């Protein structure tokens, strides 16, 4: 029985870690229900990505693209997914949590009149009438058990909590499907995207993140020191809300309740206090390193390795130590 569908947004020619994690969720949900999972690739790169996605252990890989899906909008993607799902009623339909699925999955839930669980961390059980899932609430401070009582339901899953399925094994069948006509909602036009260009790894992909707080005193003072450390470590750069609000770094660098949620192998927190909203975005990192001059800073409560020091001394010293070690 095929009962889980994973939707992957195919608007770029590369699969992200989150897409692989969503397939990992598919495998876990399928194991819980005793079924299997399919994948729907939605967008202009659907065909181009299908060969790679066919190796992820799913049943069938469906590809859907059309002029209206060329650029992502919540309206068109929700309408396209709704059209597909009304012909193929899956037990669970899931995607990785992202700024896109945060807006189009609830819209899709309304179009289909099915319940939804956001940013799920764990699959507890999946029966024909009830799915039991774990998710975080109250700024990540508590875990809640959520029961979706319906034969069909939607889920977004937190990509850091699901391992990509092992590759290899049989390749899935690829099946192009027609996009419904007149998808584009009359009311919405994409105008443009402004993205900071960077040679560093993407926050969601990185194994190491160097994250900066207000204590760095901005782009003319501590931030370049931390950037140099990030480069020596091959790390991505992250930031607190305070840093982004001050205009020191762009919004896509923000980690936390209202930014990105990450869980790299190593998270180096520099000159940030560790507010609950920031912790909500990084507390599941495997190893947390904190450098802060205040021994009482709450970040030390979650840090595996803490150094009480002035970052203006410690960060250049650490960078130099790592450089000489590497050389």
């Amino acid at each position: 029985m095929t009962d889980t569908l994973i939707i992957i947004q195919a608007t770029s020619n590369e699969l992200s870690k989150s897409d692989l994690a969503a397939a990992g969720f598919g495998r876990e949900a399928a194991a819980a229900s005793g079924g299997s999972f399919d994948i729907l690739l939605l967008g202009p790169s659907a065909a181009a990505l299908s060969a790679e996605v066919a190796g992820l252990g799913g049943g069938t890989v469906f590809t859907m693209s059309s002029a209206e899906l060329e650029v992502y909008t919540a309206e068109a993607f929700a309408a396209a997914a709704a059209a597909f799902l009304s012909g193929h009623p899956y037990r669970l339909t899931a995607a990785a949590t992202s700024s896109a699925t945060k807006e189009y999955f609830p819209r899709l839930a309304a179009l289909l009149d099915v319940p939804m669980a956001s940013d799920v961390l764990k699959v507890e059980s999946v029966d024909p009438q009830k799915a039991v899932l774990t998710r975080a609430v109250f700024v990540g401070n508590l875990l809640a058990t959520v029961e979706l009582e319906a034969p069909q339901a939607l889920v977004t899953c937190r990509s850091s909590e699901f391992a990509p399925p092992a590759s290899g094994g049989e390749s899935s069948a690829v099946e192009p499907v027609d996009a419904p006509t007149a998808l584009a909602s009359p009311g919405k036009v994409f105008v443009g995207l402004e993205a900071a260009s960077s040679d560093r790894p993407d926050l969601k992909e990185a194994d190491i993140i160097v994250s900066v707080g207000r204590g760095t005193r901005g782009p003319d003072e501590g931030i370049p020191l931390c950037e140099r450390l990030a480069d020596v470590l091959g790390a991505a750069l992250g930031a607190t809300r305070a840093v982004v609000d001050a205009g020191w770094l762009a919004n896509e660098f923000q980690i936390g309740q209202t930014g990105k949620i990450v869980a790299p192998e190593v998270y180096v927190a520099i000159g940030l206090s560790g507010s609950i909203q920031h912790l909500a975005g990084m507390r599941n990192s495997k190893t947390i390193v904190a450098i802060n001059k205040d021994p009482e800073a709450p970040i030390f409560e979650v840090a595996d390795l803490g150094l009480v020091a002035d970052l203006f001394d410690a960060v250049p010293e650490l960078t130099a130590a790592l450089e000489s070690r590497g050389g």
Partner: protein
Amino acid sequence: MKLLVTLKRTPQRDARIRISEEGDALDLDNVQFEVNPFDELAVEEALRIKEARGEAEVVVVSVGAEECEQQLVSAMAMGADRAVRVHHDGELDSLQVAKALAAVVEREEPDLVLSGKLAVDDECGQVPAMLAGLLGWPQASQASDIELSEDASGATVVCEVDAGLETVSLALPAVIMADLRLNEPRYASLPGIMKAKKKPIATLGIEELGDLGPARSRVTGFRALEDKPPGIKVGSVEELVQALEEKKLI
């Protein structure tokens, strides 16, 4: 023009929430409540639109029990003109709340609905996009800037997306969800607080709003995060490098 702002009563942003002994509910006895921080931004934005245009009515709406009138009054103290409360005591799921709000929208016929992007208690981030879907209206999420056209037929919205800042243009009516950098909410002034006491709160019975269907998403238990073993403090950069090497992290 008419602006409708959806508003949820939530525990104070830094409150420590404990679980009841049975583990199936929250112990909220000593917790203070406030307007959900993201909804406060939505109220502020509505007031700024009203001030910039020189005319507009700002209506705040909440679905909940009687105590959420305190938060409706807070919004009116900031400057909202009137409030609607859909009375319901007990749990509703996001889709039921969205259906109730859709019924209010059909009665009020606003030109724009402003919502917070997320309620800081359940952290679902579902209701406003569900509302947009039910109404068939365009939506913009994670808004950090909203510019209405002169004739109020459309809006240009900057949204904080994973890749950066996305600009979209929407035809009104639409649903727009506020993110943190949209504005800085004002404090209620003393005259504002006095005036708010006289502003009307209309109450609607939830049963007047049509069939909302059953609650199909339910929270059945809570648990605390697993305790993490305490970390170690290192005394110098040298010790830090050594510890990282021992853990094979570098």
